[in-house]
Every structure is written in structure tokens, then in C-alpha cells.
């Protein structure tokens, strides 16, 4: 559906930027045609964020030109970029927490009617504009941010990891919108690590590696491998398949390392029961807001359960503080790396943290002298030692590796990971997966929550699906393909439509309508039982 004209809407050429000795961008280029959805891809540290910052005016490049509709436009601030028709939507919504939504809209001079239309189209039915931004959940804020950007009809809309940490239903709506905006007057730059999404909505992809544009790929059925190849600079093998680990799998009589019985909280967690054995990796799958946040907070010791109990090695425990959980051998790797790391300190200090804190980390790996352990951890994870000085200078993926490394070095009994690979490139993801598998093999019990369903089969032994605060399915890894998991997560019948299928249907319907010269009609997924729940979810938001 790309325009066949050679004229570009946005053209960035020879963009270079260095920070001292570090070259972030070197003659990078990006050319976007009008009406196309263009993916911008690259591994962590490849220069994507820097390029985006240059385009939006947050950073001034050392060299390079940027033209929009043929006119040169170097923005020096987001405000200026917006005036030039370039709007970005980031992972952290740019909403002021202490102002209500209508004030936020006034601040950016957003036209109200178009905004409301977009909010509706993105799946948030009733939105109370007098709510304070700080009181709304993150997913809602991100949709508002997106609607705000769409409402001013920008020439170029940049979506930076827009679907990261979005629940499946909202991801669906966002992708639908992106797909339907194609062929219009404006273009979309779509930054993402998720191949399936890119494959379903984007026309072309520009790949960056080490600050240079290494290729521009037309999206087709088999372009994924080519893209990954470009990103990594070498042919990438498939992640090795999980082999059965008969030794641990047969220990059915053993007391589970971690057991949860009828756990409930005052929030969205109602009644959850499951267990995790030593040597297992269990994956938790859920749409956003189904109670998984509360579950993890309770297990990590930062919140109290109102009903049910938690047992560690068969003994009931009651945590009043995360330190209690750590003493019980449970370590928690949160999704927000800023919560887990001492940003101003160095990598070494962060990894060595558990040693300096007077907490015994007991686990399958015996503790010995700190230095060799830390060094080994750094080696194992191939943490980019370019910025070993301060953790905050590392890329997101490397930061995540540090958060996990600190527990590897100290020994882990039970590890809880909440969305560990959010917003991380493929290579780092694989490293994290291997790390988690190694941990399990060494005897740890690992519980991870992930919004990337393809991870389940790569890392986990089984998947537990939560919906409405309760466990609705327990699926063995061999059967836990993305489609099955997604249906279970929606609590749907197994023959219901999937998001990609819905998007594909939209695209197909539009193509048909274009051909027939009529208004395209969206297919109504009215037969799904999940549909009624859909309206409940939106009003919760």
C-alpha cells in the first residue's frame, strides 16, 4: 500500500552525533515516503533513540540535514518539531502528573473533538477528562498521549515502542489505527522490537547498526530474518529448542519451592493458586490489569495479601518488607530498571550490592569471594563495558542485564521477573533467556511475567494464564504457542479471532473498499464472548 512516488515526506541524511568519544550516529539516514508506516529498527545502542531525538529536536546533531516535504527543518525543541509537523509519542507518556487531562490537553493546544474521536477509536470508551494524570494507569496515559498526537494530524508521527507494556487489547487497537492510517497524507515511523507487529503493519524498515544505516528492507513474509541479520551483522541461528529435563521434571513428590494458595488482594487479584518447583521456569501470561502486578508485589514483599497464603519450601510465610522476601530467598527483578538499579553507581557496584547488604543470599551457587563472581557475571552477560562507569549511561538492555546479574553473582533460590525483556533488542533478549534457563538449571525456581508471548516457549516449562484475578489456564510449554496463549489470556473460545487476524481483516477490507470505491467497514468481532468484557475493561480504564 505504499505510494509509488519517489518523493519522500521526511528525509534525514548523513546525520552524525557523538558524545565525547562515543559515536552515537555516523552518517545515519532515514527516508520515509508519504503514507507509509516505516519501521526503525536496531539493537540496543545502535543509535535509534539518538536518531529519534535528533528528529524531534531534543538533541542537536553534529552534522546532517533533515527535510520535511522538501523543506529543510532542523528542530531545536519538541515544540519546534511539532510546529514542523513532526510529533513523537514515547514510552513514558508526556503528560503532567499533577494536572488533570483537560489541562494537559490545553497545555499542548490539542483540539478536543478530534482527540475524543481518537480516544474512542483506540479503545478507551469513557474517559473522564477531569481526572489527574497521576491517578490514571500507565496504559491509559499512553493511549491519551497517542490520541493527542493523532488529533493534530501531524505529517510524521513517531511511535517509540508504543506497544511495549500495553495490554493485548489496546495493542490491537493501536495496530489497527496504524494500519488504517497508511495511505493517508502523513506517515508513521514505528520503532519496535516486535517482529510480528512490524510485519503486520509496516511497509518498509530501516535498520541501524552501530550508528549507521545498514539497510532498508521492504517488509514481506520472509523479511524478518534479513532484518535480524542486518541488525546483528551476522546470520543469527534460531534460539536452541528447549530440551526436556527429565531429572527435575520427575520430581513430582518434592515440595515446591514456591506455592501460592488462593491468594487475593484488595486490588485486582482475586484467587490465584499455583506452584513453582526448583529447576522450573514458569511463565505468567495475562492482559494488563488482571492482577499480575499485585501478585508480584505480594510475592516480592512490598504488599500484603488480603486472603490466601504463600508458602516457601512448604512453610507459610508472611512478608512485611522486601527484605523478608529476600531473606526467604526470593529476589525480584522489576520491569522498571530504575527501581532496581542505583543509577549513579557503576556496574560493578550494582552487581556487588547483595554482598554489601547484610542479607544472606542462599542458593544453589555457593558464595565465595566477590570479585571473581562479579567478573564472571559481567563476562557471562557480555555487558557492554563501554560505559562501565555509571549504570545510567548503559542502554536499557544492558541495564536489565545488570539487574539480573547482581542476583546471579550472589546466588538465587527463587527469582521473580516482571516483564524482563520489555523494550530490549533480540540479541540481548536471547542472552537474558539463556541466563534465566541457566539459573533454573542450577536449581533456582524462576517465575516470570511477560507480555511477549513468544518468549514462553523459549524460556518456560509451563505457562499460567491469569484473567480477572484468577488462573484460567495452565499450559505446558510444548502447547504454549502464541495463538493459544493469546486466546487463553483473553479468556476466549479457542476459535475466536486473534489481533493479527483482526488487523489483517481490516487491511483486507480496506483494500477491497479502495477497489470498490466505498467506505471500508470494520469487521465486527461480535461473536466473541470476550466482546462483552471488552466494554467492562474500557470503563475500568
Amino acid at each position: 500500500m505504499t505510494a509509488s512516488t519517489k518523493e519522500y515526506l521526511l528525509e534525514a541524511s548523513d546525520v552524525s552525533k557523538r558524545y565525547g568519544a562515543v559515536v552515537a550516529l555516523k552518517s545515519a539516514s532515514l527516508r520515509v515516503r508519504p503514507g507509509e508506516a516505516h519501521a526503525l529498527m536496531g539493537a540496543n545502542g545502535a543509535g535509534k533513540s539518538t536518531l529519534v531525538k535528533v528528529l524531534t529536536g531534543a538533541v542537536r546533531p553534529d552534522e546532517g540535514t533533515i527535510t520535511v516535504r522538501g523543506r529543510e527543518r532542523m528542530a531545536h525543541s519538541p515544540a519546534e518539531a511539532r510546529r514542523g509537523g513532526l510529533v513523537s509519542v514515547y514510552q513514558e507518556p508526556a503528560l503532567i502528573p499533577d494536572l488533570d487531562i483537560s489541562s494537559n490537553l490545553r497545555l499542548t493546544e490539542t483540539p478536543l473533538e478530534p482527540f475524543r474521536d481518537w480516544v474512542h477509536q483506540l479503545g478507551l470508551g469513557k474517559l473522564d477528562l477531569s481526572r489527574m494524570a497521576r491517578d490514571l494507569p500507565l496504559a491509559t496515559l499512553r493511549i491519551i498521549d497517542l490520541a493527542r498526537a493523532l488529533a493534530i494530524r501531524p505529517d510524521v508521527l513517531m511511535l517509540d515502542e508504543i506497544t511495549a507494556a500495553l495490554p493485548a487489547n489496546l495493542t490491537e487497537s493501536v495496530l489497527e489505527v496504524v494500519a488504517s492510517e497508511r495511505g493517508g497524507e502523513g506517515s508513521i515511523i514505528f520503532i519496535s522490537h516486535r517482529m510480528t507487529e512490524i510485519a503486520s503493519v509496516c511497509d518498509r524498515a530501516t535498520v541501524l547498526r552501530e550508528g549507521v544505516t545498514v539497510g532498508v528492507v521492504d517488509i514481506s513474509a520472509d523479511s524478518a530474518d534479513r532484518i535480524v541479520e542486518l541488525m546483528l551483522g551476522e546470520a543469527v541461528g534460531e534460539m536452541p529448542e528447549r530440551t526436556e529435563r527429565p531429572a527435575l521434571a520427575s520430581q513430582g513428590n518434592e515440595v515446591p519451592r514456591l506455592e501460592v494458595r488462593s491468594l487475593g488482594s484488595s486490588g485486582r487479584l482475586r484467587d490465584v493458586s499455583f506452584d513453582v518447583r526448583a529447576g522450573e521456569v514458569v511463565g505468567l501470561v495475562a492482559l494488563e490489569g488482571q492482577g499480575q502486578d499485585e501478585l508480584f508485589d505480594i510475592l516480592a514483599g512490598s504488599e500484603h495479601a488480603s486472603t490466601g497464603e504463600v508458602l516457601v519450601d512448604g512453610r507459610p510465610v508472611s512478608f512485611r518488607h522486601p527484605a523478608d522476601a529476600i531473606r526467604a530467598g526470593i529476589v525480584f527483578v522489576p520491569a522498571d530498571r530504575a527501581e532496581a538499579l542505583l543509577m549513579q553507581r557503576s556496574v560493578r557496584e550494582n552487581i556487588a550490592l547483595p554482598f554489601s547488604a547484610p542479607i544472606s543470599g542462599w542458593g544453589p551457587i555457593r558464595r565465595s569471594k566477590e570479585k571473581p563472581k562479579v567478573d564472571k557475571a559481567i563476562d557471562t552477560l557480555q555487558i557492554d563495558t563501554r560505559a562501565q562507569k555509571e549504570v545510567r549511561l548503559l542502554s536499557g538492555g544492558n541495564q536489565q542485564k545488570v539487574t539480573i546479574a547482581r542476583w546471579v553473582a550472589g546466588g538465587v533460590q527463587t527469582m521473580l521477573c516482571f516483564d524482563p525483556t520489555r523494550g530490549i533488542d533480540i540479541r540481548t533478549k536471547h542472552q537474558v533467556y539463556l541466563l534465566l534457563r541457566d539459573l533454573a538449571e542450577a536449581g533456582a525456581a524462576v517465575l516470570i511475567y511477560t507480555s511477549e508471548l513468544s518468549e514462553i516457549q523459549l524460556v518456560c516449562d509451563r505457562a499460567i494464564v491469569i484473567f480477572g484475578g484468577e488462573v484460567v489456564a495452565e499450559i505446558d510449554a510444548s502447547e504454549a504457542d502464541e495463538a493459544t496463549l493469546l486466546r487463553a489470556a483473553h479468556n476466549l473460545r479457542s476459535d475466536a479471532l486473534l489481533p493479527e487476524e483482526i488487523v489483517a481483516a481490516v487491511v483486507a477490507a480496506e483494500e477491497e473498499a479502495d477497489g470498490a470505491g466505498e467506505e471500508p467497514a470494520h469487521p465486527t468481532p461480535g461473536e466473541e464472548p470476550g466482546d462483552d468484557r471488552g466494554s467492562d475493561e474500557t470503563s475500568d480504564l
Partner: protein
Amino acid sequence: MIRRHGWTLGLVGILLVLLVVTRIIQPTYGAAGVQGLAVSVLPLAFAAVAQAIAVIARGIDLSVGSMMALTSVISASLMEDRSEGFAVLVVIGVLLIGCVLGAVNGSLIVVTRVPDIVVTLAMLFVWAGCALLVLGTPGGGSAEWLRSLTGGSILNAWIPKAALLLLVIVAAIWIPIRRSRLGLSLYAIGSDPLAAYRSGVSVARTKIFAYTLTGLFSAFAGLTLTATTGIGTPVPGPYTLLSVAAVVLGGVSLAGGRGGVFGPIVAVVILSLLRTDMTFLNVNTNLATVAQGLILVGVVMVGSLLQLRKREP
């Protein structure tokens, strides 16, 4: 609405209780007492408003007291032995000087990227020195009309002119700003500078504007100091720290982005009245200061706890 202004309303409640307590301690405390209270708190009230604006924008201005001093001595020395009409020009000029002082503070902060607290700390000494250069010792004079504007009562023995003056000036300047996009930007940069930047707000310009307003209200404070005492004072007392105390007590978050200017005004009155009550009770002055501090901490702690409780269901 109640929730938004909850803290301020709570303070008003405390004030009313305190007034009753004062009456009980000192049965003769009446209109004259209220009158005296209003006049004495007028400069500090303006200083509190000045500080509140800086803090809302996620800054802090340690030079408020010095700017007060400077504007006080400039107005006093210019108005001495001059005509009433000239004094009007002086007032306007001094207000403009206040804006300039504030703009200098703000610009330095923005341009040098040195933290607000450090820049204003440095400027504290600069403006204080300038004040002493203008008037080495307290002196100068004040125009009659200015003095009568702040003294006495109007309409009713119970309504002090000072109070009316304060409220009218603050409302006339602050309320239109608060409702405008500029006001939103002020709160925005205080609440989340990055989100504000990404929303297209010019953080630098808004910051400078905030400090300019602080300078303006500091000038009002200096002018009223001259008006109420009749002279200019180069070293007026611990107004800066008291303004910070009033801001904290007044429900303005030191983290920025939250609060208003009327809470600090009520806080100033409460702090002053407490002082008066302790005098009536013959409490040792130094002990009174300690007590004031303890009460300040206590009220802020309780208030914060209540706010925290509300947040977590």
C-alpha cells in the same frame, strides 16, 4: 473542589481555632489585635507568595529576603523628602526593579544550569550587598499615601486595609496567570520537566518567568515593609527562611507542581498568631521559636500522612 483545596481549607480551620484560642488567652484581643496582625504579616505574606511561585516551578529562591531588603531601601531612599506624586513613580519603578532582579535570578539559573538553590544562594549575597550599598543603616522614608494604604481598616473595624491590599494584589496578578497557559506551564515544569518539554513547553522561558514573578512579589514585600515601618531596612530579618516555612506549611510541595499561593498566606498568619499567643502566655521568646518550629514540623507531618493515606485505598 474540596479535595483540591483541602489543605488550604484545613489551614483556615486551624486559623479560626487559633483566633478563638487567642481570644480566650487574651480577652481584649479584638479588632485592634487583628489590625496589628495584618500589618505585621503583610511583608512576610508577600514573601511567602514569592517563594511559593518559585517552589511550584520546582525551584527555590533563597534570595527573597535580600530582594525584599534591596527594594525596601531603594523605595525608602527615593521617597524620602519627595512629593507624594513622585512616590507613585517610585513604587512603579521598584516593582519593575523587582521583576528585573527575579529575571536575573531566573536567567542565571537557566543559562548556567547551576541548581536553583546554588544560584539564589549566591544572589542572596549579591542583593544583600547592594541593599547595604544603598542604605548602610535603616533610614529613608515612606510616602504618606503608601503608609495609609497599609494601615488602619476599611469598611469595618474588623477588615484591615492590609489584608484587603494583600488579597487584591495577589488575586489580580496570580489568578489570571494561574488560569492561562502560562500558569499551566508553570505547574507543568514543576510537576515533570521532561514531560513538559516533550509537550512543547519552553522550560527555560517558563522558569525565568516564574522567577520574575518571585522578584515582583518580593518587591511588593519590600515596599510593604517600607510602608508599614516607615523606613527602609537593609537587613530585615529571616524572611527567606520564614517564607520557605510558610510555603511548606501552606501545602506547596517542595517537589514542585502542586499547591497554590493562598495556602502559604494563611500559613503566614497562623505562624504569626502563634507567636503572638506565646507572647501573651509569657513564653520565653527563644522557647517560642523552638515551639514554632516543632508545630511547623508537626502540622506538615500530619498533613502529609493524611495525604498519603488518601492515596492508598
